[in-house]
């Protein structure tokens, strides 16, 4: 052969080239992943020394993981507001150790909350506020616990959250404490109730836990429900479960659902002719239900951990700041709890700073010391006076039962306080006088 006409690709079929290409690309990817893995490992911030309080970069970071997207951002909005107001208030107190707030979107799912926690911890947050949902907390709190980062939960009320670990605490009282108060009030108003219908969102962790508490309280009063209707969070049309329940002619309806679905459920209940009392759970503890159920919301009973009508200096300050940016409205429990979470951390940091506990220590030690300080303090918050048990559970002196009162236009309304209630005997006694005699909780 004088001329070699062998094509350049001779000896290498396309298949072999693809396979070799795939191998090389895999190698590249593996190397890239390895690099990213190592880069992600560096710099455990917990050994870094804290800067001095007066230094230019002396501000310590408080991280907040709040649901700003997804279906829980209804609560996240209020929480963001509450935390922001508390931060502004704290600045006006000329703190010795300034604090910086870093807010991250925790989404409404576990993975986003985990990512947000990891991000903030890695960036050296002193402590964390959040996450919004109890089910997110079960996923993300163990991470903070392992890394030794204090967490103050503003709105997790499910059972077992502070027990996740030493570093986990909350300012939101457990639903088992609050929920039965509204049942008591409803039965007080109409002692002749015999038939109770229960609705709950069975695909929501919080509602599922809360309804058990309601049912237990009802059973303790000798009133097992005549029907238990299970709905889905994504439902908005409750024609079917409502008509099924109304056939049994209930005199009291107890609802454990999240806000929007709850608003619809109430409206449809009324439209389909139900005239009895309605007791709702914590998921409807937000003014965001007003536009949904409008005038049909009037008269529903809810037990709360916060009342705007509490007449203490800190609550008046909170109300003043709140109304400056939201004229004519009253803050929700969620906002008040978010404020309290920030306030509690702020005050604990300042106390620790005053004792010298934040000078010349590493971040890890500071976090540990802060947790100790947090658990040992007493705080005067818009929720009333609170402190913590050793396991991080909040001890709150007083609770409230409120009734929704809608304005004649049906677009706005408020939670009107109808009853103050004191805490169960095992907790600290309420401080300050109530405006009406406290109703002791029934034995459970």
């Amino acid at each position, binding site marked *: 052969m004088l001329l070699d006409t062998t094509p350049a690709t001779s000896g290498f079929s396309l298949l072999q080239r693809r396979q070799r290409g*795939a191998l090389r690309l895999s190698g590249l990817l593996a190397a890239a992943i390895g690099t990213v893995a190592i880069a992600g490992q560096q710099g455990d911030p917990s050994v870094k020394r804290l800067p001095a309080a007066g230094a230019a970069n002396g501000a310590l970071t408080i991280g907040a993981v709040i649901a700003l997207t997804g279906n829980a951002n209804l609560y996240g909005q209020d929480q963001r507001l509450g935390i922001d107001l508390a931060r502004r208030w704290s600045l006006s107190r000329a703190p010795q150790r300034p604090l910086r707030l870093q807010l991250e979107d925790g989404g409404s799912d576990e993975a986003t909350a*985990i990512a947000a926690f990891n991000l903030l911890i890695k960036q050296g947050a002193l402590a964390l506020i959040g996450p919004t949902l109890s089910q997110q907390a079960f996923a993300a709190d163990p991470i903070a616990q392992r890394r030794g980062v204090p967490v103050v939960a503003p709105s997790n009320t499910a059972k077992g959250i502070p027990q996740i670990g030493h570093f986990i605490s909350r300012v939101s009282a457990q639903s088992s404490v609050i929920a039965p108060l509204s049942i008591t009030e409803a039965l007080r108003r109409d002692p002749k109730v015999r038939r109770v219908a229960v609705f709950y969102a069975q695909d929501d962790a919080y509602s599922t836990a809360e309804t058990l508490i309601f049912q237990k309280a009802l059973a303790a009063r000798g009133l097992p429900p005549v029907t238990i209707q299970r709905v889905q969070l994504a439902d908005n049309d409750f024609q079917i479960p409502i008509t099924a329940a109304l056939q049994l002619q209930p005199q009291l309806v107890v609802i454990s659902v999240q806000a929007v679905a709850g608003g619809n459920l109430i409206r449809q209940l009324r439209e389909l002719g139900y005239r009895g009392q309605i007791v709702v759970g914590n998921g409807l503890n937000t003014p965001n239900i007003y536009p949904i159920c409008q005038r049909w919301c009037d008269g529903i009973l809810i037990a709360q951990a916060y009342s705007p009508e509490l007449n203490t200096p800190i609550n008046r300050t909170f109300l003043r700041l709140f109304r400056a940016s939201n004229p004519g409205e009253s803050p929700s429990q969620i906002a008040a709890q978010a404020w309290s979470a920030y306030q509690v951390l702020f005050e604990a940091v300042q106390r620790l700073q005053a004792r010298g506990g934040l000078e010349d220590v590493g971040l890890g030690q500071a976090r540990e010391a802060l947790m100790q300080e947090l658990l040992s303090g007493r705080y005067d918050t818009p929720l009333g006076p609170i402190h913590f048990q050793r396991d991080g559970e909040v001890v709150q002196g007083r609770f409230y039962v409120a009734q929704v009162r809608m304005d004649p236009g049906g677009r706005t309304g408020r939670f009107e306080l109808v009853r103050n209630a004191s805490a169960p005997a095992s907790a600290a006694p309420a401080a300050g006088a109530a405006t009406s005699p406290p109703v002791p909780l029934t034995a459970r």
Partner: protein
Amino acid sequence: MAAMIDNGLLVQMLIGALLGVSVYLPLAAGQLSLASPAFYAVGGTLAALLSTSWPVLGAGADGTFPLASFLLELLLGGLLAGALALLVGRLVLRLQGIYLAIATIALVEIVRVAILNLPFTGGAIGIFGIPQPFPTAAGYLLPALALLALAGWVCQRLEGMPLGRAMAAIRNDELAARCMGIDTTGVKLTAFVLSAVLAGSTGALAAHFLNTWNARQGSFDTSVTMLAFVILGGSRSWLGPVVGGLLLTALPELLRPVGDARLVLFGLVILLGPVLFPQGLITPSLLERLGAPLRPASWRRRGGVAP
């Protein structure tokens, strides 16, 4: 940028890549099956249940978990998912094209609701406090990478094996393949089961990684996201979904600085991806170019000229 991806996110990216390969396998045999999230959910539920309710596996009181039990769960998760796929596959694979896709979406929803409603799976609350075989997220990197490497190795070898060639033939033209004597049902079923096994093992890994597990893991959203991994990454090679899975899982997190608009941007990426890269990122021609011999062929030619 590398520093923004901490090890936890990296593990999530690897899980995304694994799920992408799981969708790729049936697609390589021409079957658009979106059933992987169902098997992912099954594997995860099994791992969550076993590790929290079977003391024999050795879950410690402080939340630790022996590595051997963890690996066992990966295996069992995959096997259970595979068994389920074997049962369901024969029925489902009789369907064609878009009908198959919709039927698999239906399967995902049925499994999700079943897990939500069965008494022992924890309902809406799910199962939490899943014990950890590793003290930090970084520990999961190695098992995830190993699983991915295993999956990649299988896919790579498939191309040269008769099974792989049969799959490609079916993808090209199922009728012709059947006429040539290929057992199309068996091949399709094999691909389906392999994909389920991978998804099930991934689920078991993810359950431990996420600390908690519930019916919301593995739903229709996951189906379409995984499909996006494959389409944007490239559906002609297993590396396509790997790259697609890595990138698209990282993207919403990397877009955090953008703030509220980040999911809008994410949607834009998915909208424009197929327009800009109709064959995906990893195309066969890209692989061919990457696989070019290092020595230019002209050297060989010179050496090969006969006098």
